[in-house]
């Protein structure tokens, strides 16, 4: 029984962790009343997706994807494709986070707060 659980966790367990991390971020985005916290939760969600893709690139017995002379078989290196994709995704997430921060500063300018309740209340008053 224990060996079965162990092998299951070794083979598939990491997917569960990424799913939990993803929905942790989603939960935060749904419940937090503060826009700054919402932004941080969105980042957590993004990181879960990045982890998920990196899991797919793993290969047992493979080394890092930098060619070593003498090793030519494709089984010797881990999959470089998810790494290349996620490298750009990480950098772009930095850009989007920066843009989100900028928008938050404008919200703070206009409504004097980044708490959701206050912003909605002030928006209703303006109508």
């Amino acid at each position: 029984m224990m060996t079965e659980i162990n092998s299951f966790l070794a083979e598939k367990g990491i997917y569960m962790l990424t799913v939990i991390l993803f929905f942790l971020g989603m939960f935060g985005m749904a419940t937090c009343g503060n826009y700054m916290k919402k932004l941080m939760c969105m980042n957590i969600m993004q990181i879960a997706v990045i982890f998920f893709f990196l899991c797919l690139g793993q290969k047992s017995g493979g080394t890092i994807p930098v060619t070593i002379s003498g090793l030519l078989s494709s089984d010797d290196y881990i999959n470089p494709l998810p790494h290349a994709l996620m490298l750009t995704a990480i950098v772009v997430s930095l850009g989007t986070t920066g843009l989100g921060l900028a928008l938050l500063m404008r919200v703070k300018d206009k409504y004097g707060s980044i708490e959701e309740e206050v912003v909605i209340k002030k928006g209703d008053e303006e109508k």
Partner: protein
Amino acid sequence: MMKGNKKKVAGMMMLVFIVIICWGLIDLLPTIGDPDSAPNTHISKVFIEEGPEQTDAANLVTGVLADYRGFDTFLETTVMYLAGFAVAMVLSNWLRKHWNADIFRATESFGGIDVKVTMPFIILFLLLYAAYVLFHGEVSLGGGFQAGALIALAFILYTLIGNLELNTVMLTQHFAVCVGGIGVMIYGVTGLLPLFYGGKFLEYSKLPFYVEETAKLHSIGIIFIETGVTICVMATIITILEAVLERNSLYDDRNK
């Protein structure tokens, strides 16, 4: 009362989602480390087996990023640049007269003689390391995005310390946006050059440089676009930092 309920409902929903997804999808997903799983076969094998010869980049990730998927990376770089541009637009200074901001820079209290003496060394070594990471992007671990982040890190350190008499990396916000555009332009021009010599967009083997082997042209092309990416990422991070710092006030609610 309402808020507590909302949290409970959302938490339950998330739990249900987690269980459904784990239950339903876990069998479809490939085993970790399986060399014969779908993501590790097909095109990935071609990248690994033929990549080093075709792209002349020992680092397979750089080969995929800058050569096979060069067009994708081009647009990612553009997205990065647009993010910086949008931050500069959103936080442009037409509102600043209402804000009455004093530009926040760390003052002497954070500095001190030790920091002032050691920081220039750390910044210089960071820049050196960034250059190493950039130019080793294709032969060992490294690449344009990381090098750009490192240079920006040097800038952030410089900004944090403040009042340093060291003018290695000084970029104001508006200038930084222009520099980011130049980075994207280097990438674009490298892509356009082969068009004039009978190639396709980003077809490095048609670049107009004389080398003995055609494969070496790929290294030249990759170095060029990595430089463009480095400049763009560095400038974007600096733009965001400058734009946010410019409006940051030491007193939180002073405009009330």
